């Protein structure tokens, strides 16, 4: 095993697609870009590819840094690299920014070739199914017929699940982490509040704020603050902040408690770098995903065509994507006699736990991933 655990300096690439993509909503994207990164080397038989699907606010920068001076590496760097649980000595890992994103792939912020102006509100509402279809096109472009694995947490887990439904012959293993077969009403309600915060911001301009040279910063900020509350557990917030004051009670509405300071910091940071139109679309993709719907709510039937082997993981303190929701996926897979393992990781960090390098969690991932067979072309 290599001692150097970092993938090092990475660079994004862009794939342009001229073939029209019909979306679930019925609209057609005549052409589009997907920005992506890869780590490790694709082997001769192209059997070692692993696709990472991102969640609500993620992107293609999954591991490594763009320069030595970067403060932070990619968002799942603790998982991916030489000698890490998803070992780039063995696997060729692909991260991409989904359609509708704001990090380089075609989305509301990018230029609509028909108008030469940003798409803004006119960018279609994309779904998990659309993402998976576009990801399949990216694999085609890379010459990859079949994924050794698809990996995703939260909304990314929904994409991993959808891969096994939409492209059963193109995925060997699916790692569905901290996810759900659809959102509960409560979960969707959080999304609605987040969207309302953005949409009712006077600077939203019905999604066409680019041409007004403003950003609905307040809405985005509140949406993110709300999100952060739901990604953490009560316990971990208590442990991290408790009722700690920054200074003293001043009988004001300024930042007085440490928790407030944290939320405002997270909100401000996010509002400065994320696109509001992307955010409301990502939450809609979450709301709409429900593979059982066209099977009369029968998830077992929805998963009956899958062929992949599954690892399903949940976290005990995750109340936004609770273990019970993961168990629904497991049950449907068991009903179909699929190869599946399920672990419920004891973790304090709530939904965010899937991004943390918890020892047991990573041991499970490492063990599972190292057993993935990529045939005789195992690059060492």
């Amino acid at each position: 095993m290599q001692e150097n655990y970092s993938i090092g300096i990475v660079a994004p690439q862009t794939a342009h697609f001229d073939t029209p993509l019909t979306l679930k909503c019925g609209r057609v994207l005549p052409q589009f870009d997907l920005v992506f990164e890869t780590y490790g080397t694709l082997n001769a038989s192209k059997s070692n590819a692993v696709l990472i699907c991102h969640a609500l606010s993620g992107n293609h920068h999954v591991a490594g840094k763009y320069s030595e001076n970067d403060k932070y590496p990619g968002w799942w760097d603790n998982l991916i690299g030489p000698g890490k649980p998803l070992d780039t000595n063995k696997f060729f890992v692909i991260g991409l920014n989904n359609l509708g994103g704001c990090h380089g792939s075609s989305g509301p912020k990018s230029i609509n070739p028909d108008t030469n102006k940003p798409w803004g509100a006119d960018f279609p509402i994309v779904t998990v199914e659309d993402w998976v279809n576009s990801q399949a096109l990216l694999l085609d472009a890379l010459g990859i017929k079949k994924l050794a694995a698809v990996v995703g947490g939260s909304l990314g887990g929904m994409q991993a699940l959808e891969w096994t439904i939409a492209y059963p012959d193109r995925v060997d293993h699916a790692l569905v982490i901290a996810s759900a077969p659809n959102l509960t009403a409560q979960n969707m309600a959080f999304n609605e509040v987040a969207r309302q915060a953005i949409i009712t911001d006077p600077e939203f301009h019905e999604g066409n704020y680019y041409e007004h040279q403003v950003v609905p910063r307040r809405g985005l900020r509140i949406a993110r603050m709300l999100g952060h509350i739901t990604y953490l557990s009560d316990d971990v917030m208590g442990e991290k902040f408790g009722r700690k004051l920054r200074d003293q009670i001043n009988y004001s509405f300024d930042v007085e408690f440490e928790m407030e300071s944290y939320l405002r910091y997270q909100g401000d940071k996010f509002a400065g770098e994320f696109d509001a139109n992307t955010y409301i679309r990502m939450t809609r993709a979450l709301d709409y995903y429900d593979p059982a719907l066209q099977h009369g709510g029968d998830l077992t039937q929805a998963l009956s065509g899958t062929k992949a082997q599954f690892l399903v993981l949940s976290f005990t303190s995750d109340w936004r994507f609770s273990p019970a929701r993961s168990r629904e996926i497991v049950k449907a897979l068991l009903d179909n006699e699929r190869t599946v393992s399920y672990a419920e990781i004891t973790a304090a960090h709530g939904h965010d736990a899937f991004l943390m390098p918890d020892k047991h969690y990573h041991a499970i991932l490492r063990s599972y991933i190292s057993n993935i067979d990529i045939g005789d072309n195992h690059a060492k």
Partner: protein
Amino acid sequence: MPNSVSITNNVTEFRQDFAIIANWLKFGCKLLDLGCGNGELLQFLRGSLEVKGYGVEKDDANVLACIKNNINVIQMDLEDGLSGFENQSFDTVVLSQTLQAMHNTEKIVLEMLRVGKEVIVTFPNFGYWRNRWQITAGRMPVSKILPYQWYDTPNVHLCTINDFDEFCRNHQIEIIQRKVITDSKEIHWMPNILGNLAIYRLKSRQLGV
């Protein structure tokens, strides 16, 4: 002195029930192994019978070991029942040397009969003469198969073969087959005294559970 309180570690030392369990399974059957430990039984069966096997295990380290061993494992607590499994969805459900450590013993046996067309239960026979002897001598039994002291044992529902027979009678459970063994030898004469380990093959007498 025991240095582990894992309720399933007996299995690694006592594989005498594995061969009998294997004999009662059909080739390629769908099997649920409750309290599967590190997946040893499923590994044992994988090579010979090509069962479609799933283990159920509560302990983190055992779940990790199963995943390492490429055994399908579902992490859950058996005390909560088997709500994630459909009625009659497995050919056989196995509970190997775990019954005595269950709190909701009655519930889990009935749940197994709901989920499995057949059920295999193995447990240490508390009526075994060495246990009786230790009790007569005024001490709680400690043996290879019951390796715990009274104060650290996970075993809360120990029973004898006669007890379990009666349990089956009272719960409309049909005993398809029963084998009693001591040190891998089958015991036919006075099994409740001379038998160390009991292995039952059961099914529900109730139709449409």
